[in-house]
């Protein structure tokens, strides 16, 4: 569990941690849009430097960020293979023969893959920084605040935020429950690591069925506890935690917008 980096909050006292979650979410969305613009390598270098500065200010070690890339390795290799097989444009880099079949790797295949990978890495970096510097509860509070104007078009802002908050709250509990069920099944002879595919599927079923049953029971009890404490999804409530924008949040949003403008210029003007 400790190896899971993506989404894990690191409690530190830094200017990035102190930012308003709404400002962080909005800045992340603006930079994500900027990443999707075809601004070229110079643009991505610029975004990379900007994110790097944020990582340094947040006192997050780069090796921790690198660990967040690990789960994406398979996807990156898969992308490379697909591109090598499908892209047939650009300079020929390698041309060889496998079992009588001519096999060519073009420069554009590698270039396109690198382009996507860099975009992916920048996206992972920025979302990881957001989740590492923002408490899950602040994140959901930020989402609720940002969705509030959409209530006029019947977007259930509070319900969405409450669902996310409860899901985040129960992740450790469900992981603990999974471990407990796995150990109970192992003690009955179920092997989750070895065996044929059919045996592995049956082992997973023996884990999933009780886990679902326990989780549904948990959800029922939680709903009772919430109702007993006066919670009504459509009822009027006050908020214990209130968010207030500060000057540093305006600086962050200004920086994000500047990046977006620069990417638009690089992509469409220059």
């Amino acid at each position, binding site marked *: 569990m400790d190896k899971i980096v993506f989404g894990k909050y690191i409690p530190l006292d830094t200017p990035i941690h102190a930012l308003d979650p709404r400002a962080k979410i909005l800045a992340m969305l603006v930079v994500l849009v900027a990443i999707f613009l075809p601004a070229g390598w110079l643009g991505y270098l610029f975004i990379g430097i900007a994110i790097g500065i944020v990582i340094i200010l947040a006192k997050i070690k780069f090796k921790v960020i690198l660990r967040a890339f690990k789960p994406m390795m398979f996807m990156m290799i898969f992308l490379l293979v697909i591109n090598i097989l499908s892209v047939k444009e650009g300079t020929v880099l390698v041309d060889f023969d496998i079992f009588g079949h001519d096999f060519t790797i073009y420069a554009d295949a590698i270039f396109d893959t690198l382009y996507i990978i860099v975009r992916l890495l920048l996206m992972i970096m920025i979302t990881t920084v957001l989740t590492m510097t923002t408490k899950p509860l602040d994140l959901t509070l930020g989402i609720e605040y940002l969705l509030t104007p959409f209530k006029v078009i019947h977007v259930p802002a509070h319900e969405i935020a409450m669902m996310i908050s409860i899901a985040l709250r129960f992740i*450790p509990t469900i992981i603990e429950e999974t471990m407990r069920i796995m150990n109970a099944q192992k003690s009955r002879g179920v092997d989750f690591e070895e065996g044929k595919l059919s045996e592995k599927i049956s082992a997973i079923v023996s884990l999933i069925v009780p886990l679902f049953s326990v989780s549904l029971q948990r959800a029922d009890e939680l709903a009772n*506890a919430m109702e*007993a404490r006066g919670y*009504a999804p459509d009822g009027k409530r*006050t908020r214990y935690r209130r968010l207030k924008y500060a000057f540093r949040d305006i600086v962050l949003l200004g920086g994000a917008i500047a990046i977006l403008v620069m990417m638009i210029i690089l992509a469409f003007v220059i």
Partner: protein
Amino acid sequence: MAIIEVKDLHFSYEENIEALKGVSFSIEKGSYTTILGHNGSGKSTIAKLIAGLLEAKSGEIYIDGQKLSIDTIADIRKKLGIVFQNPDNQFIASSVREDIAFGLENYCVDPLKMDDIIDKYAGLVGMKENLDKEPSNLSGGQKQRVAIAGILAMHPSIIIFDEATSMLDPTGKEEIKKIIYDLHGDDKRTILSITHDIEEALKSDYIIVMNEGKVYKCGKPHEIFSDTKGLRDIGLDIPFTYKVKEALEKEGIKIPYTDTIEELAEVLWSNLKA
């Protein structure tokens, strides 16, 4: 004056299988009442019906003179709080502070007043030092104390403990039991505790014994536990001091009823001296 009145309550989870078969009882204001019974006797169902979490098939429930119905449920819930069995499944927020605030938010308490209320009730249950802790860093007993603080913050006059100590270790059990006794003794709140714990029941003012969805017996602890045969017939245990009295009586030695080991030791010592 009765603060809780239950009249001829019927309830079924499944068709044709009645969990409650005409349950009636009343609970006095400021009293400490325990509901005893083996698994499936309908104890927890009663708690959920009183809290308005389940709807009875027939029968009536009055809380502080107000009949429980869809129209009155919101008002009635302000008068009672319920602490459930599993400490994990009632910890809603991501920190102790936020969890205590949850009920206050639902009752539209001014956010500026919340910190003082949270501090007061967290202090009352000995959790003031842990206000920023996450649930994963708390023991079962601590989580249960947070649940109690969250309920106390809403100022209910009745608190229901639905087997609130059954999933805790011995230390956690003792901590929660002490809070229950203090709430009754110092705060004079009405306590309704659904429990398997015979020793806890012995300390209550009244006991309601449930069996197969019916009230088997109601009364003061002495009246209930003196019926040792009846209790054993319905699968319930009796307190240690009552077992000793029973065993001595078989040998022809008569001693009065005692509630604690200390009282029993004193009685035995006086008998020996005499």
